[in-house]
């Protein structure tokens, strides 16, 4: 029966271990939101690029402090952000693909689209510029050159806002991109930049992410400032008919907050300290026609 005697202290150890393992959990569960607080939660579906830039880390706490609501930020590509909202799985969307946004608006899934801010996309590529696109005034012509010379190009390939814009540009150029030179990463902007850098390829990126990755990549800007490269962000509210339990008031409150003057003032200077230039231009109250 020596086995049984030896078993006792082991049992005690088990108990100690269980308590040890469950202790941190208690501290997490304890202040857990009670059921009533759930209606106070706003689910924001948004693009990855805005979270990567750190802007939301600044704005969301501001909103929470002001309204007492809790925001759950789900960072996905624009395609998924709108798809989730259209199923009623989010309360407000903050996205950047005007053509897709309009489609959801027309279908009645999303409503009250309001412009928030813009930054711009740039075409970057290897220094030696094998397709000789540098200085081309129209970005669509530059893409055509890349396709004609079969120079490597990395696409997001994930239905993100950036990907939607890129596809629009290929369409303008009259080209259906495919072949060994056209690489679809299926990943976020940061990862895609890494791949482009590694493969010495061209790609399209928002300026903010490119600035943030200056230390890691060595692909200079080759095309910029063409009108189609404008990257316009907007907020859209979710039609409550999309599904049960949509927090309509919360979604509207967040959308209102994004275009409020004090929020716009924060956006105006965001990034100035870190990159020496602001990352976004606030444009609340303007219309798409102001940018065409």
């Amino acid at each position, binding site marked *: 029966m020596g086995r049984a005697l030896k078993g006792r202290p*082991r049992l005690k150890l088990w108990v100690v271990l*269980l308590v040890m393992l*469950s202790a941190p959990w208690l501290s*997490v569960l304890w202040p857990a939101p009670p059921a009533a607080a759930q209606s106070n939660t706003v689910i924001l579906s948004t693009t*990855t690029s805005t979270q*990567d830039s750190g802007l939301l880390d600044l704005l969301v706490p501001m909103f929470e402090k002001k309204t007492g609501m809790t925001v*759950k*930020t789900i960072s996905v590509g624009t395609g998924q952000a709108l798809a989730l909202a259209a199923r009623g*799985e989010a309360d407000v969307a903050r996205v950047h693909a005007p053509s897709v946004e309009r489609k959801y608006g027309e279908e009645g899934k999303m409503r009250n689209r309001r412009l928030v801010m813009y930054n711009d996309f740039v075409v970057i590529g290897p220094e030696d510029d094998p397709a000789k696109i540098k200085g081309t005034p129209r970005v669509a012509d530059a893409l055509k050159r890349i396709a004609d010379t079969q120079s490597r190009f990395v696409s997001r390939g994930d239905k993100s806002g950036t990907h939607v814009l890129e596809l629009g540009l290929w369409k303008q150029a009259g080209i259906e991109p495919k072949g060994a030179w056209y690489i679809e990463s299926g990943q976020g902007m940061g990862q895609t930049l890494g791949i482009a850098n590694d493969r010495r390829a061209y790609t399209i990126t928002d300026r903010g992410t490119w600035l*943030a990755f200056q230390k890691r990549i060595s692909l200079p800007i080759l095309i910029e400032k063409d009108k189609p490269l404008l990257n316009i962000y907007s907020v859209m509210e979710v039609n409550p008919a999309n599904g049960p339990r949509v927090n309509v008031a919360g979604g509207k409150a967040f959308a209102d907050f994004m275009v409020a003057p004090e929020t716009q003032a924060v956006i105006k200077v965001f990034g100035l300290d870190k990159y020496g230039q602001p990352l976004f231009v606030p444009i609340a109250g303007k219309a798409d026609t102001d940018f065409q």
Partner: protein
Amino acid sequence: MELIGQGIVQALRLLLSGDAEVWRIAGLSLAISATATLISLAVGIPLGTLLALARFPGRGFAISLVNTGMGLPPVVVGLFVTIVLWRSGALGFLELLYTPTAMVLAQFVIAAPVVIGLTLAAVQQIPGQFRLQLLALGASRPQMVWSLLKEARLPMLAAVMAGFGAVISEVGASLMVGGNIKGSTRVLTTATVLETSKGNFDVAIALSLILLALMFLVNWALTWIQQGRRA
């Protein structure tokens, strides 16, 4: 290589400077995965024992299911748990999506088959004569099962380690059902993905090292118990 060195320095700095966010993320990782493992044990040990000892039609099929479940792809679990927890899903009324509880649920689904499968193997490897002997000595059925489990406790600790290891290192399901929300559902693995995509490779390496250290500490404690405090 230089980057990994930077990562180690960064990890030490983050931990020693008492960076509240990093401690919080590490604590949350441990809490969620430990809870999921404990629930898996509570469910998995009885089920595994039952599968090992009971004889019923379809037993072979059930065991095959469990064995397949031991290799369940976390992203598949994540996708289905997400759909069930959606506001429009079967459990939508609970409003659990994007909460730590949702992550516990997904991790439980991943860990439970591992615990069931390894318990099954642990109990089955005890020779049949042992069971007969116990019964011959007048042990009641519950007493017999308890003795078997005590006999199988060393390999069953391996089940604890495997289950915990599977869930704390898992990223796909956690990202999908948790949403990687700062201060709420951001754990070591999802934070590592985020920092990598942001290009903060040193922070990502630091978080990875903290994860490895955490896994080591837990496994070391378990091994200590398993090897009778000689390890």
